[in-house]
């Protein structure tokens, strides 16, 4: 399958990319790693006039520390996030989740920022980013702005990034030494999550001192179940106690219904996966 014809630009600076987006009008697509966009183009579900490839902008790739944050360039491939010593030390949840995206070849091309802006409800990065309280650095014609995770994911495949803007980096507060687990339920390898639960935990002695949770594919945007987080504080990481604390983890969610399962089935999965994720994150 061959995409419809398009013009192609590969700018070398963020400023040039933003200018090309502004000039291109309504029918422009931004190409990051292409692992979602190119299949869509091949199926001719989209047929843009112009594609602006961010792959030649060196400054968008890489992972660095900045005081109490990790800063992950939007064009950093999943493989680099998953194998980064900095990410494993300070935001292990992101490494866990990134290592489950698709397959190795896709993780070599697909990018951290691209997956977040794509905002597939079944994608594996949004829920961990929300759980960790990430913020998103966005460049546009009026300069740059920073958007917190709670405001970034707007709807199905829709984020706060405007049509004339690009995501340049994601800033993640360090969670140094926190245990992490991403429990993903799929029927076959490579599949998108039917449901997944992200958990990262800081233990104090033998009980949970702090915890962050995120739910994948339990609504049109990722969900942070804060009541369940509160219920876990002070709990010992043993199965019965954790199961009781996360019993309400799916309350208030509106998961999709499809061939993979009903909404009720997904709520059940969320409770089971939350227990597993918290226990594994706590090293239990």
């Amino acid at each position, binding site marked *: 399958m061959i995409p*419809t014809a398009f013009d192609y630009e590969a700018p070398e600076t963020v400023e040039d990319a933003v200018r090309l987006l502004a000039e291109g009008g309504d029918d422009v697509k931004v190409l990051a790693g292409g692992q979602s966009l190119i299949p869509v183009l091949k199926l001719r579900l989209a047929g843009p006039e112009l594609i602006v490839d961010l*792959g030649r902008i060196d400054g968008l790739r890489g992972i660095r520390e900045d005081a109490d944050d990790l800063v992950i360039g939007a064009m950093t491939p999943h493989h680099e996030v998953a194998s980064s010593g900095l990410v494993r030390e300070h935001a292990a949840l992101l490494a866990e989740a990134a290592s489950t995206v698709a*397959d190795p070849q896709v993780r070599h091309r697909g990018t951290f920022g691209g997956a977040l802006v794509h905002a597939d409800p079944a994608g594996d990065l949004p829920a961990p980013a929300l759980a960790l309280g990430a913020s998103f650095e966005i460049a546009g014609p009026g300069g740059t702005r920073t958007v917190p995770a709670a405001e970034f994911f707007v709807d199905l495949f829709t984020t706060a990034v405007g049509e004339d803007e690009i995501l340049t980096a994601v800033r993640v507060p360090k969670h140094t030494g926190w245990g992490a687990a991403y429990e993903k339920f799929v029927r076959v390898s490579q599949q998108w999550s039917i449901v997944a639960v992200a958990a990262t935990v800081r233990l104090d002695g033998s009980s949970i001192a702090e915890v962050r949770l995120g739910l994948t594919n339990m609504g049109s945007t990722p969900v942070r179940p804060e009541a369940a987080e509160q219920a876990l504080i002070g709990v010992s990481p043993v199965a019965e106690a954790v199961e009781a604390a996360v019993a309400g983890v799916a309350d208030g969610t509106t998961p999709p219904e499809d061939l993979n399962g009903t909404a009720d089935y997904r709520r059940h999965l969320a409770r089971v996966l939350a227990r597993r994720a918290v226990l594994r994150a706590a090293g239990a």
Partner: protein
Amino acid sequence: MAKKPITLTVDGVSYSDDVEPRTLLVQYLREQLGKTGTLVGCDTTNCGACTVHLDGRSVKSCTMFAVQADGHDVTTIEGIASEDGTLHPMQQAFHESHALQCGFCTPGMIMQSIDLATEHPDPDEATVRENLEGNLCRCTGYQNIVKAVQAGAKEMSGRTGAPADEAGVA
């Protein structure tokens, strides 16, 4: 739509061409360079038959435009044997373990297996299966493929003296 000039290295040879931006890397390899050893299976990023190396790492060449490879180094299944025809250790291992039936998935399997072995020089069975999740074989049931990859990886690490498994991706 205007064609774009690209210059890239494929299997050690430099090529300069003008391509339509919508030309997929796999199309460019097969139709412009005649490198038909790289196959198109599903054409939807699932099966891995089109796997090549871009700057040393495995990618699906059906899910990349040729213009994105401008300035980069591509290796296909046709570029891994020695010039005298001696097979790459991973090719030899697939041959010896009879790790194929129809052979359609084999080029992609071998390219991904070389990538896997670079990161995991002595992979256990689970590591092999996990790292081949993006490559589908509809004939063999994978048993002989796993055997071949383990044997090929050992041979590769012996040959290159690579250090013990650095365990990049968990």
